[in-house]
Structures are given as structure tokens and as C-alpha cells.
């Protein structure tokens, strides 16, 4: 090798090392010294009670708590908007936030369609989304990508959890009332698998338009089927009206209802008289541990309501994200995603939690039963926690995943 060639080689090596150093120092920086979090949520639509203003409050609480605990050198800002559960509004807002407002992470995203749209934009712009409100299991299956975390629940977790438990309690025959859109069918399918696996039987199902004001016609079909359990594969107003009208037509208590997705805000709204005895799967109940109570009471002071699993989940998700930024000293998407996936999650919200390669945050879920009015001793005293569903069983196993990121 000639002298000339040697020196060229040296320069290339030095230049490469320098370039690498520059790149690393760029990664270990926070752009504009500001970490900006966007809460894109349902402010006014059917899901706003378990997300909306409550999710914004939870995010703000997480930011304040983080600042008080870590005194970070960077500034944290929050922007909020209403996605109105529409795909186009969600993508436009996400694009605007990432491009012009330098938002680093978007969270909440309540309806499945909003979640799926935002994660596509995030992938295109190489930014992070943490979906808490949407439930479709598509998010971590065929729709999955490496910039998305699905944090709180999905139709597999709530559908399977409740269905298995009910079959175990003797509810062997089922009839489904299914909201006629992706989410409803996904809930029905996931629950059906669990029922069959547990030795139960599905006698039939009826799809109703979304939203449906009057569900009595469908309830009569469920009554005529003679099934022990009427599975409600719907959400929000549809679930509330199903419960109310089932009681009116005398379907309950002869047959039992199993709501495959119900939030504490729904139970609060319908009241214990009509929801008593119902089984449900939840990731969070405010009155479960001293830590969950402490958080919920602080939240209650601000919102005058107890947090839903989604609102508590948003707090936990934002905190987990900010801690990853803090420990890596970077807001670079890949760096933060790697750190978030590496760090286990154990807080007032999630126990034994971690984020899998498909983006699914798995943690212990709980099987709960709604209390009788006579058992409820104080406001919001609504659930008996019957069992813990361990993280490894609560969510779809990776072996069944259709996400291309999962190495099999």
C-alpha cells in the first residue's frame, strides 16, 4: 500500500468516525430543546366520556409530575385537537402537527379508524404514536409498524378475557349483538374463539347498524335464541341502550348480559341497578390499589369523575415516553422507541408491563364484576375485582400475530 493510499484510508476512517460522532451527538439531542406531545382525541363524539377532556387532563398531570420529579433540561409542551372519529381529519391534523408544529409524539386516538390513520402518517414522517383509546386488534397485527405503541386494551384482551370467564362461570351458550363495523366484528370474532376454546357454544348473532337508538328488535332475537348469555359486541351508547332495553323487556335477569367492552363511565351513567352482576375485563380500576386510588383522587379533584382505563392509561403512556426521552437525552424516534421497548412498565396503572416487538404493551389485566347497589358503599364503588389475568395470557400471543415485525 502506498503512502498516499494509507493517508487516504486514514482520512476516510477519521471522517467516518467524526461523522458518526456528529450523528450520535445529534441523536443525543432534543430538537429545539422542546418535547411536544399531541393529544388527538374525541372531544365531542360518542367516546368523549372515557377520553376527551379527561385524557388532556391526564396528559397535563403526567407532564407536571414528570417535571417535578426529574427537573428536565428540555421544555415539554402539549397541543390538543378533536379528531371527530374521522380518518381524514385525523391524518390532516397529524400531518400538520408533525410537519409544522414539530410534535414528537401523538397519543390517545380513540376510534380504530383514527388510530389506524394516525399510525400511517407517523410511519411516513418517522414520528411516534401511542394509541390508548382505539381497540381494534388490527393495530398490532396486519396494520402494525415500528413507530406505534398500542398501550391500553384491544378487542382480543377485553373480548377474550370476559368470554373465557363467563364460560367458566357456567355461561355456555351465547348470542351476540354486534355493532356492524370493524370494531364490533373484531370483538365478536375474538370472543367467539375464546368461547369455543373454553367449551362453550355460539347459537347465533345479529349485526345492528352503528349507532342504534332502539335495540329492542335485536334483543328479542337474542331472547328467542334461548342463549344463557347475550354478548354485547358494541360500545358506548349502543351498549348503554342495550343494557337498558334488555332490562325493560325482562331479558335480564333471566338471561345474562356480557359487555365485551365497557368503561366505568358507562357503568356510572347506566347505574348499578341495571348493570349489576355484569362481567368485564379492564386494565385499570381506580379503587384497586393504594397507588391507583392516589392517582384517581388527584384526577377526581380536577375532573369530578373517576378516570376510565383509557384516561389513566394516557397518563402512564406519556410518563413512560417522557422517561425514555429523559434517559436517552434524545427525542429521536428510533432511540426513544428502542428505550421504551427495553424498559419494563410498573406503575400505578400497569403491572408487569412491557412493549412487545409488534407494538403491543402487554400487562396484567383484571376480570371484574359490577357490584350490586347494596354492595356499593361510596361514590364510584362499582367493581369487584375477581381475578388477575396475567400479562402473558391477557393479550394475543405473538405466535398468532400477523404483524410482519414479529420474527417467527
Amino acid at each position, binding site marked *: 500500500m502506498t503512502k498516499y493510499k494509507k493517508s487516504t484510508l486514514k482520512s476516510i476512517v477519521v471522517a467516518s468516525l467524526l461523522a458518526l460522532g456528529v450523528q450520535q451527538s445529534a441523536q443525543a439531542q432534543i430538537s429545539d430543546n422542546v418535547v411536544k406531545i399531541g393529544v388527538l382525541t374525541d372531544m365531542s363524539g360518542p367516546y368523549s366520556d372515557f377520553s376527551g377532556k379527561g385524557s388532556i387532563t391526564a396528559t397535563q398531570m403526567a407532564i407536571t409530575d414528570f417535571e417535578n420529579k426529574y427537573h428536565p433540561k428540555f421544555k415539554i409542551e402539549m397541543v390538543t385537537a378533536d379528531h371527530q372519529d374521522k380518518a381524514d381529519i385525523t391524518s390532516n391534523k397529524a400531518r400538520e402537527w408533525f410537519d409544522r408544529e414539530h410534535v414528537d409524539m401523538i397519543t390517545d386516538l380513540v376510534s380504530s379508524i383514527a388510530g389506524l390513520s394516525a399510525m400511517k402518517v407517523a410511519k411516513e414522517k418517522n414520528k411516534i404514536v401511542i394509541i390508548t383509546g382505539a381497540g381494534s386488534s388490527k393495530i398490532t397485527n396486519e396494520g402494525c409498524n415500528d413507530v406505534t405503541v398500542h398501550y391500553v386494551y384491544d378487542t382480543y384482551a377485553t373480548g377474550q378475557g370476559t368470554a373465557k370467564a363467563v364460560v367458566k362461570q357456567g355461561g355456555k351458550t351465547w348470542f351476540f349483538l354486534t355493532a356492524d363495523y370493524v370494531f364490533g366484528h373484531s370483538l365478536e370474532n375474538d370472543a367467539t374463539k375464546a368461547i369455543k376454546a373454553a367449551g362453550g357454544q355460539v347459537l347465533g348473532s345479529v349485526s345492528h347498524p352503528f349507532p342504534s*337508538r*332502539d335495540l329492542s328488535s335485536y334483543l328479542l332475537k337474542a331472547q328467542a335464541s334461548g342463549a344463557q348469555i347475550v354478548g354485547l359486541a358494541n360500545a358506548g351508547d349502543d351498549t348503554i341502550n342495550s343494557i*337498558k332495553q334488555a332490562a325493560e*323487556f325482562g331479558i335480564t335477569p333471566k338471561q345474562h348480559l356480557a359487555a365485551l367492552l365497557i368503561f366505568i363511565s358507562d357503568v*356510572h351513567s347506566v347505574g348499578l341497578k341495571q348493570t349489576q352482576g355484569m362481567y368485564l375485563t379492564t386494565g385499570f380500576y381506580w379503587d384497586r390499589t393504594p397507588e391507583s386510588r392516589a392517582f384517581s383522587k388527584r384526577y377526581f379533584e380536577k375532573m369530578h369523575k373517576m378516570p376510565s382505563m383509557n384516561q389513566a392509561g394516557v397518563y402512564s403512556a406519556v410518563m413512560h415516553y417522557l422517561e425514555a426521552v429523559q434517559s436517552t437525552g434524545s427525542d429521536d424516534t428510533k432511540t426513544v422507541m428502542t428505550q421504551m421497548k427495553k424498559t419494563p412498565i410498573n406503575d400505578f396503572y400497569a403491572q408487569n408491563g412491557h412493549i412487545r416487538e409488534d407494538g403491543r404493551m402487554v400487562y396484567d389485566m383484571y376480570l371484574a364484576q359490577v357490584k350490586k347497589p347494596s354492595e356499593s358503599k361510596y361514590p364510584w364503588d362499582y367493581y369487584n375485582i375477581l381475578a388477575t389475568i396475567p400479562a402473558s395470557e391477557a393479550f394475543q400471543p405473538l405466535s398468532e400475530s400477523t404483524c410482519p415485525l414479529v420474527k417467527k
Partner: protein
Amino acid sequence: MIEIFGVPLMALYSQLMLGLVNGSFYALLSLGLAVIFGMLNIINFAHGALYMIGAFCAWMLLSKFNIGYFEALLITPLILGLIGVIIERLLLKWLYQVDHLYGLLLTFGLALIFEGYFRSQFGVSGETYDIPEILDGPVNLGFMVIPKYRLWVIFLSLIVCVLTWFMVEKTRLGSYLRAATENPKLTQAFGINVPLMVMLTYGFGVALAGFAGVMAAPIYQVSPLMGSHLIIVVFAVVVIGGMGSISGAIISGLGLGIIEGLTKVFYPPLSSTVVFIIMAIVLIFRPAGLFGREK
């Protein structure tokens, strides 16, 4: 067992009854809309929101003042009627001379404001209103077991519909109203106070929405969005019946409730659109609606 297209006759009867219950609500609401449009030429988009306020009013009377369902059936329409009078005097009266569109936009704006206010106060999940004890429980009709309350809804709304029709079509007051619509200036020349009549008509239409709201409270969740879910269907009912036609609104309300009920038996996914399909067909062949008059 006798079956029609694979559906047992008994099940069909039950669905017909349920359709009739929904039809009763369509009839009551479209009746209010028809009265208002017929007399004021205003397309009252706030009707759904006023129906929602009626339901909330009943809930508040019960939970805050311990005033029961039957009293609420009388008090709520009065309160809503008063709200209607205020809206008419403060806002609508300025719009009679301009295009229909302005009335529609104004009332649509009002609906958004009302819904937004209730949503911020009560959240979207809303509140529960229990069925009054005397009407609670089922009745066995032989072919089906139906909650007593649903029968009461059919009975009461039919009475209100017939009374309204009678008042507008068969009484002296009704003839003044109709005259005031046809030719306000000439009617006023006969010494009839037309602005007062118009104001009371709007108040009456709104009171009907409030009345329907009270009737709906025990069946559906009392929620800020309950009106907006319903109003579009009710508008379709009015268009099918013929804008402004009282009897058209009643007959098409009940009829479409039944058709919708039957669709739920034979092909549920179509049940939310069947009314609009019928509307499109009616508009092709009878643009003024089934009972409307071409102007």
C-alpha cells in the same frame, strides 16, 4: 307454526309492535316539524336538540325537584313551549322575509349550541331515567310480551297526534292559522293577530318536541346526542309525508316505523337506510311528498 320468509308469524307481530313504538316517536316529532314548517316556513333543525332538552328537563325535574313522570309530561311541554316562544321572538321573527336557508342555518346553529352545552355539563353518556312504577313491567299480548311502557307510548302519541290534527284542520283556531299561512296580510286585515299566532305555533311545535323527549326518557338513555341521532330520520319522514302536511307526518311517521321494524327482521344492516331509500323513491315520483300539495 306459520312462517313468512322463514320468520315465525309471532315474531313478525312482535317486530310490528316495536316498529309502531318507534313510529310513534317519528310521528310526534315530524308532527312538530310539519306544524312549524306549515305555518312559519321555517325548517326547524333545532327540533332534535329541543327533544333532547325535553328529556333532560324530565330528568332534572325528577332528580332535583322530585317531580315525577306524569307531572313532567305536563310541565316539560310548557317549559319547552316558553323556550320556543323566546327563540321565535328574539331570533326567528327576523327571518320570515328571507330565504328558507337562513332559518335552517339559524336553527342548526342553535342545535349545536344546545347540544354543546349539555355535553359539557353532562358528558355524552348521559343520565338514566327510570320507567314510572305504574307502567313498569311486561304485558302478555298473546303473541308477544311487551313492556307496558311501550304500549303507553303508542297510546299517548296517537292521542296527541289526533288532537293536533283535529285542532289544525277542524277548529276555528286552526282555520285562522291556515289562513295566516296562506295570506298573512289579508288575515291580519280581518283583525287577527298574525305575529301572535305565529309565535304560539312555534311554541306549540317545540312543546311537542319536549313532550316526545319526556316520553323517550325512560326508554332511551337521556343523552345530549339523542336528538341528533334521530333528527335526520325525522326529516326524511317529513319529506316523505309532504312538507307541512299534518296528516302526512302522522301517517308516514307510523308507517315508516313499521317498515323499519320489518327491515330489522329480514335484513338488519338495511334498517338504518331503508327510510332514505323510500324518501328517494318518493321524491322521484312525488316531489311534494305523499300528502303534500305542489305549490
